[in-house]
């Protein structure tokens, strides 16, 4: 089967690389709120519980969020909540 993709041409000066660079992680978590995102796989919550306990013990605030299922992308509401309320996000993979 012929799978076609679309080609676009860059309208910019191409001073920037084609892939957007990842945002640099913070040098410290002091004063930051860490979102702990359960991606919906089995035992994600166990893993996140462990991380949360560790972070809280170090005085770092956490925010728990969860995808309804690992089979789909996170709902926009959850992404907006993380963007608005947290500084850093940990997406837990488990099994």
């Amino acid at each position, binding site marked *: 089967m012929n*799978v*076609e*993709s*679309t*080609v*676009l*041409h*860059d*309208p*910019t*000066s*191409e*001073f920037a690389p*084609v892939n*957007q660079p990842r945002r640099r992680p913070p040098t410290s978590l002091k004063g930051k709120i860490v979102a702990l995102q359960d991606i919906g796989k089995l035992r994600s919550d166990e893993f996140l519980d462990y991380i949360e306990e560790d972070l809280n013990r170090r005085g770092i605030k956490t925010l728990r969020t969860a995808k309804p299922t690992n089979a789909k992308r996170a709902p926009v509401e959850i992404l907006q909540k993380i963007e608005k309320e947290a500084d850093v996000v940990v997406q837990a993979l488990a099994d």
Partner: protein
Amino acid sequence: MKPVSSIPPDGLIAVVKEDCPTCRLVEPVLQQIGSTKRGIVVYTQDDPTFPCDVPQVIDDRTLNTSFDLEIETVPTLIRHENGQEAERVVGWNRADWQRVTAVADLGEELPAHQPGCGSRSIEPDATYKLRARFGDTGIRARRIQVDQFEDEIETCFDRGWSDGLPVVPPTPERILRMLEGTSRAPDEIVGQVPPDLAPCTIERVAINAVMAGCLPEYMPVVLAALEAALEPNFTLHGILCSTCFTAPLIIVNGPITEKIGMNSSLNALGQGNRANATIGRALNLIVRNVGGGRPGEIDRSTFGAPSKYTFCFAEDESDPEWQPLSVARGVTSGANAVTLFQGEGVQGILDQRSRTPRELTRSLAAGLLAVCHPHICEWAHAVLVISPEHYSIFRAAGWDRDRITDALLEATTRNGEDVVQGAGGIAEGVPKNRAGEMVPKFPPNGLLLVRAGGQAGLYSAILAGWPGGRAYKESHPITREIIE
């Protein structure tokens, strides 16, 4: 003719489409050739079951082979020899087909000749798509592959290429089509676009014109507008990084406005006309994408303005007694030109009671005093867009452009004591040491008159300029001829 590797290196080839009467006419001929020992390979552009009863029919609905063979007419009969084209016959001509096929009695029952139809591979737009798909586009800008499940418009948003509205995805076929709008070489550098002073090629202009929604015939206007904007005295960098409301406004003169369907009449300053809307947008997208001028970064406008999306219109030149703006600014009458103005949005002036030029002048002048601030003088230029009904008052009295301009400049000149800082309890104003002077509102040549608008409405419109215009020797509107 280049050798084509995917088709038989030797023998007969025909390219046909079922939709063509001449192709249908030659169907028995193709059957006759197909039944000979030599045979024939038939490429069919639209219906893979046509022609019937021919042993070797190849589906060419993708038009790949038609493109490679540079087919312009169907039917086309080709004889290949050692991988090269030896002979080609276009349409049906019995004698030629008999000679090329070496079948002496071929098509004896058919008329001696009948012209063919256009190949599907040269239908409008097909050329560009086929070149993009099968050929070398020659486009130098970086290729970005979008996955089949991604939405190209969302990709453009994600990459920061949009002004906030959806853009037309810049695919190779669209860029090739846009480049047909100019005879200039794609790799020619138009100039360096601020703030990054990035070199901008014709090709890069075409890409952004595609995204803005332009038609190829708008390209000469887009290019002239960009060149005018890049002239040092337009100070594009300054208006971009300013905290003011300013954007590059484009006023177009000359017969090209009619040719490309620009609007100078009803709603000329508003939405609804493709050329007006997209030419202005293309310029702003070039500044954003090529120059790197994005709001929140180098663009520090406190409020911004709708004109930062697009602001372009044509002058109404329907009255032979009216001297067009471009002519007033030195361009030959009848030539096409753009005037780039550092402007804000639209401030309307409503006057339904003036009946004489003097009354109307005073009234319009009162509105013009509000540019920047009623007490700020000689800082900003302005464009006054005069509606047909307001103009008719001047015209009936025999007032031309110069006379209206002079009268408005006189009427907007203020007693210094009325506009100095602190006058009337208003802190803003001209320096106090000018209290004894007559102070002109506008810098020299700082008031531009343009005719536009619908027939009904005793209104005119002020397009306020940029306060940076106070350095008028270094920053002022630019007029430039459009080269087609």
